[in-house]
């Protein structure tokens, strides 16, 4: 029989699938094509690109709180949330870093430019990637976890810099929605972006929850393996 948390998880998963179905249909069938200098039909990448960046912020923030809490008082659950936050942030970061250049090719004429926002975002994803590599290869001892947690806190402190990079240092990254931009000039464009945020919020919640449970299960497994080995049960991995 399934527990209440399992039921909530499956309900959230169903909501995520439904919201993505509605989002894709709306973006491709209803949202109008933008002007050519903005990329024409390639501008529709925007409705996934920006919400993915927002999901990166959400996951990074969850990782930050998990890591900071672990540094204050280490527990398996806190470490699991820190780990989940970083892993999900890397996935959303890679989504942003791959979809952005494909749109930029049409709008700017180049795949990549060392714009402040692009550069700081890439630095952030690389930092989180370093945390993942550290956790994968440096063992699961308390010292390694603390080191990874400290790196996660540092990486997340970069998030506000990414957000305000355009304001701080200029650059060519669009500021359509924020910092005095002209905004989306059609109600369906606004609706599409809203749906994108909603779908990515559900997706981030599902992925975070799943990965935190998995990370927690892995930690518990390690502890059980140690106990079993100490009792001479012959379950060496």
């Amino acid at each position: 029989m399934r527990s209440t948390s399992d039921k909530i998880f499956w309900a959230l998963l169903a909501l995520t699938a439904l919201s993505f179905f509605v989002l894709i249909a709306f973006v491709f069938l209803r949202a109008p094509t933008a002007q050519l200098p903005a990329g024409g039909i390639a501008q529709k990448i925007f409705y996934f690109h920006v919400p993915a960046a927002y999901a990166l912020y959400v996951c990074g923030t969850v990782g930050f709180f998990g890591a900071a809490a672990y540094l204050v008082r280490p527990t398996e659950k806190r470490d699991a949330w820190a780990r989940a936050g970083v892993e999900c942030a890397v996935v959303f970061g890679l989504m942003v870093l791959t979809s952005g250049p494909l749109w930029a090719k049409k709008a700017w004429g180049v795949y990549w430019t060392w714009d402040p926002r692009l550069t700081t975002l890439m630095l952030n994803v690389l930092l989180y990637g370093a945390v993942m590599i550290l956790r994968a290869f440096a063992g699961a001892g308390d010292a390694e976890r603390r080191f990874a947690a400290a790196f996660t806190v540092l990486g997340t402190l970069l998030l506000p810099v990414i957000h305000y990079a355009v304001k701080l240092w200029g650059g060519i990254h669009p500021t359509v929605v924020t910092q005095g931009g002209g905004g989306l000039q059609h109600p369906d464009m606004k609706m599409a972006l809203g749906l994108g945020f909603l779908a990515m919020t559900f997706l981030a919640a599902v992925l975070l929850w799943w990965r935190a449970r998995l990370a927690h299960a892995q930690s518990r497994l390690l502890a059980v393996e140690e106990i079993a080995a100490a009792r001479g049960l012959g379950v060496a991995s």
Partner: protein
Amino acid sequence: MSAQPTTSQDPAARSQQFVPVEGNAETTSAEALLVAAYLVMWALLIAFIGFGWRRQSRVEARLAEIEKAVGASGEARRS
């Protein structure tokens, strides 16, 4: 040294020099870029879920193995 003016109609110029131009229209297909972006995003998500799924399967298999060992050890003590 003075450069001779050339035109794009001059076949020799097309193969002997390249002149940068400003404001050249981007010719990459917007549809192709859009499809590529969506495919890459979905591929990343599916890969992440796939790797996680595999890791979860390994954890479950290992737990079953330990449970079995613990059960066998308990039976051995009772008998």
